[in-house]
């Protein structure tokens, strides 16, 4: 596609339920990132994919959070047993991969998750 696409745009869920957030990167972009932004805060790194593997998942806040990527394209971030502190905007970014990562990253519009 023309840009990074995320779905849904908004998600309201009850505490304790599982949610899945989807990211469709720019075609040909092999590097994909998930970030989280709490209200009024900066961007917190969650996980990095290169192709289908995740060499850096150091930002995942707990084992309730997991992510996968298939076919080197679409990625899904899953949050199990959601808690109110999981409420945030979840942003996805993609970039072309080169040897020294000297390429521009582009972000999707984000998914606003509200846990009630």
């Amino acid at each position: 596609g023309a840009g990074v696409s995320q779905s849904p745009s908004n998600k309201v869920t009850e505490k304790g339920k599982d949610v899945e957030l989807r990211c469709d990167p720019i075609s040909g972009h092999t590097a994909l990132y998930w970030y989280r932004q709490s209200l009024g805060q900066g961007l917190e790194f969650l996980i990095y994919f290169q192709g289908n593997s995740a060499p850096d998942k150091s930002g995942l806040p707990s084992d309730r959070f997991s992510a996968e990527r298939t076919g080197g394209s679409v990625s899904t971030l899953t949050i199990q047993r959601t808690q109110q502190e999981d409420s945030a905007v979840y942003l996805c970014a993609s970039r072309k991969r080169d040897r020294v990562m000297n390429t521009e990253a582009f972000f999707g519009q984000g998914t606003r998750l509200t846990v009630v």
Partner: protein
Amino acid sequence: GIQVEQSPPDLILQEGANSTLRCNFSDSVNNLQWFHQNPWGQLINLFYIPSGTKQNGRLSATTVATERYSLLYISSSQTTDSGVYFCAVVRMDSSYKLIFGSGTRLLVRP
């Protein structure tokens, strides 16, 4: 890890005024980007500028990599410039993730 500091944290301008936003980083980087987050939360790419100077309309940016800072200039500000401006870097030997500063929140008044 690398630290990215942005200043000022908050800025209020009258429409038509000029401003300079600063981004300092604590280690060598091979990638630096400026973003504008609009009131709807969308991150808009402004500049990809690991070094040198670039201009795009009323906006320009300069990165001095050897001195570990970047500047974003906004001239003749407009109300649509309001929002949060983020600087993000990638370290040369990192896992290539973007590391963000805490942002500068800009309000341009009519």
